[in-house]
């Protein structure tokens, strides 16, 4: 989490308006879900990889690591689709039968895997080039109620404070052999989880006082320093996505 986040904050494309990157990501996902065939999915995956690692300058290993977690689910999911379950009805000795699905269904399963990989590559592009709060600010501009967006932005801040607390807490427990056996593990985790809740609430109360000292009375307005998205570039991205749609429809 820390690594993905720090790449997003320090990357070459950090300063590009979040609206443009979100537009690209959602556009590509739409093409992938609605238009593209197997070849198109491979093309999308390659393009997004090129964009993320090549143009946006995300380190290759970071990119690969970000793909690792979804990959596990994908493989398991696709393999499940390869198998068909049947019930043998009414016969003695009958029961559950397992069989490989017919070739067309296998192809369909592989296609789902390819499509998912293409969409994941678009998601990873967004995650690795855009700091999360920029997206929250964008959502607020797009009409998400101010209070909800405020809560989300504050959550982002608190989450690092608590993450630090969790990390050092777990370390200190490890140093005192809290994870030396399975039963101790459960007990130590519970101590940590229980201890974090009052700390989290305490953080909230203290932050409330800290913000009131600066005139907080319910609204968390700040001045964003992000560039406004340019209509020209947004148009360019939309055009690019349309072209991608056309090309993928053509190659199937």
């Amino acid at each position, binding site marked *: 989490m820390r690594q993905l986040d720090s790449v997003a904050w320090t990357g070459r494309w950090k300063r590009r308006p979040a609206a443009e990157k979100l537009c690209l990501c959602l556009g590509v996902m739409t093409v992938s879900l609605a238009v593209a065939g197997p070849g198109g999915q491979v093309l999308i995956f390659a393009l997004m990889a090129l964009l993320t690692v090549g143009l946006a300058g995300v380190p290759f290993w970071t990119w690969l690591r970000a793909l690792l977690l979804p990959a596990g689910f994908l493989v398991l999911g696709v393999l499940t689709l390869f198998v068909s379950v049947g019930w043998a009805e009414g016969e003695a000795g009958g029961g559950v039968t397992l069989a490989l699905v017919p070739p067309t269904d296998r192809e369909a399963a592989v296609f789902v895997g390819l499509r998912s990989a293409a969409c994941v590559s678009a998601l990873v592009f967004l995650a690795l080039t855009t700091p999360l709060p920029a997206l929250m600010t964008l959502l607020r501009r797009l009409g998400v109620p101010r209070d909800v967006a405020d809560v989300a932005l504050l959550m982002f801040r608190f989450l690092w404070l608590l993450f630090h607390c969790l990390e050092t807490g777990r370390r200190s427990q490890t140093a005192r052999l809290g994870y030396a056996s399975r039963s101790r593990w459960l007990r130590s*985790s519970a101590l940590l989880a229980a201890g974090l809740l009052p700390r989290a609430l305490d953080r909230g109360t203290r932050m409330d006082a800290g913000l009131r000292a600066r005139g907080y009375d319910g609204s*968390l307005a700040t001045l964003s320093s992000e560039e406004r998205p340019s209509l020209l570039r947004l148009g360019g991205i939309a055009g690019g996505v349309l072209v991608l749609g056309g090309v993928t429809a053509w190659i199937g």
Partner: protein
Amino acid sequence: MHIMEGFLPVGHAVAWTAVSAPVVAYGSWRLIRTVRQNPELKLLLAASGAYVFILSALKIPSVTGSCSHPTGTGLAASLFGPWIAAVLGTIVLLFQALLLAHGGLTTLGANVFSMAIVGPIVAWSLFRGLRGAGVAGAVAIFFAAALGDLATYVVTSFQLAAAFPDPVSGFWGASAKFLSVFALTQIPLAISEGLLTAIVYNLLQRY
């Protein structure tokens, strides 16, 4: 159990989003009303939401040895009720997608339905029901957390089965298939999470 980005066909993605959206919208309305009345609750809600996210980073051991992530939304439901918990859960799922590449944007609706709506509601109503029936707090919380977890897992399996029915046995066959594939990891996890939550509950009583 998160459904990955792009795994659901476009129709299903849209449909689950349409199912979840009204609940989250209603929860948002309640949340806004709450913080307008009481501005300092904004900070407390955010801190609790962050806590829910952080709990998912807490690895717990399950009997089979694999580690995974308790959801924590059940706890949020007990603090703020299931509606506001659904909003916090939605934000958590969005964060997980964008900070961990876990879950996704097109599958957000489906994941919100199973993890931020059904799971917490099952956990919350079980807890209230069991407590009302005179069951001890720790026992009630064990069943609430464990069954809330299992409910999430069952719903996810149904969602996948609806998208990919079995060529031979249809929806129910596919459900059985997905349920059994994920059972190995999810059932021990649900038990672990139930135990963990019960210990946490006991500790919190003493703080």
